């Protein structure tokens, strides 16, 4: 330690301080700032370029993904449309069938009712005609029968006899 202090040269210290600080200030102004600035600028440029490339790649991926998505959506939509159409078709058919059924039933019922009514009317007509005819026949028969006394009596007897039977 003593030797070190003994060796210490103030003159050398002075020159070293002076020259080093001068060198430091000069280099800072004329060398380090421009060098570090340029390097930083370049690094910034490289970073920006890389980022831009990355962004473009992402964009590209997005576009591909979008088109794929669109395609998929279109497919789904088409399927849905087809399905819907099928359903509509089926429902229309079913409805038509049902309606036809109902309509047919109605027609049949009406026809039956008409037939029934016609039948009743015809029966009633026949009955009326039969009654008329019976009356006319009876009139003629009676007219014929009643032309002779015997016959009249006999008729009365027969009729009476019929009534008993009934």
């Amino acid at each position, binding site marked *: 330690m003593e030797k070190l202090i003994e060796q210490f040269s103030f003159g050398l210290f002075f020159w*070293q301080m002076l*020259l080093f600080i001068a060198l430091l200030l000069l280099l800072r102004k004329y060398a380090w700032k421009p*060098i570090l600035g340029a390097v930083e600028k370049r690094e910034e440029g490289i970073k920006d370029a890389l980022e831009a490339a990355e962004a473009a790649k992402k964009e590209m991926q997005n576009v591909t993904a979008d088109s794929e998505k669109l395609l998929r959506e279109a497919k789904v939509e088409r399927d849905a449309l087809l399905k819907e159409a099928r359903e509509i078709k089926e429902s229309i058919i079913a409805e038509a069938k049902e309606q036809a059924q109902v309509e047919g039933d109605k027609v049949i019922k009406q026809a039956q009712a008409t037939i029934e009514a016609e039948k009743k009317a015809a029966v009633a007509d026949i009955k009326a005609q039969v009654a008329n005819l019976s009356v006319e026949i009876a009139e003629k028969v009676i007219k014929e029968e009643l032309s002779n006394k015997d016959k009249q009596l006999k008729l009365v007897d027969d009729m009476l006899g019929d009534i008993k039977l009934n």
Partner: protein
Amino acid sequence: MRNSFFSKKIVAVIFLIAGFVSAQNHEGEEVETGAHDLKTEIKEYIDHHLLDSHDFNLYSYTTDTGEHKYVGFPLPVILWDNGLKVFSSSKLKHGEGVAEVDGSYYKLYHNKIYKTDAEGTINYGGHHGEETHTEDAFGENLVVDDSHPTNEKPLDFSITKNVVFIIAVALLMFLVFRSMAKRYQKSTMPKGLGRFLEPLVLFVRDEIAIPNIGEHKYKRYMSYLLTVFFFVWIINLLGLTPLGVNVTNNIAVTFALAIITYFITTFTGNKNYWKHIFWMPGVPVPMKIILAPIELLGTFIKPFSLMIRLYANITAGHVVLMSIIGLMFIFKNWIGSPLSFLLAFALSLLELLVAALQAYIFTMLSALYFGMAVEEDHH
């Protein structure tokens, strides 16, 4: 820390090998006389290398007449001694002469400048005894460690060898990074040297600053971290060149760097940082009182450890490397020189790593301290 441990390990290995080689030496016909002098000379040389110098010497040699010759060039000496005194270091003649400036006399002794009389007398105090004598050349008499010259020491602001290299590195860094910055104005892609330097700049930012300080606050510390990282690294690397310079093994240099880290930490510290120092939250009151001085001391110890770590690692590296190179001159047999060369080569590679590692550690720990200073309250 790990490096100094590693260096210690290497030193241990070297001692083992040295023992083996010197055992061989004893068997051989090598004469012991002169070897001691050589060892002393190597030690002196290493000691001298570790110190700063007022001259820029590439190498020195001794002529046949025993005269020291130095190859290099002188540097300006700047003294503050009742006024500014500037003269060339050639006047000091590597400690052998007395420089006369404006009526005052100065002499270089153990790499320090003292004010003397016209004859260049150095007066000793301390445990050196009564004798007063003049010393020529550094370290002729090695038993002067305990003695302190009592001569007046003027304030020495000389442009020493280390200062020259600090200026050189500062200029180099400014030119290189300025041109790199200019290139960026034309295009954001790095070109030329920038291709090599940009990853290092980004390393400091992404591996040192952001993880330690945080994403939002690292920016204002980047200038210091980058400057200190490249400064320490380049100057460490220069220390490994044969120019024989080593700036970062001067405690004054590492002290200057550490004190800047300390000031930045202290002046950018937020409320939370000071709260953790003086009134640690979440502990009982008596503990708070005990912790406050410890934490306060810690703020000084942290930059202090930065200073010592860089200084010690670089010094240790230089000492070990030069010792191994020195072995070559001591073991003048077939095994010594190749071994010394191989070890020195391997160690040089290790030192290259240490040069970068110490710069990284200094920057990393500075960033860690800044991170502590601006950390937000998480409680």
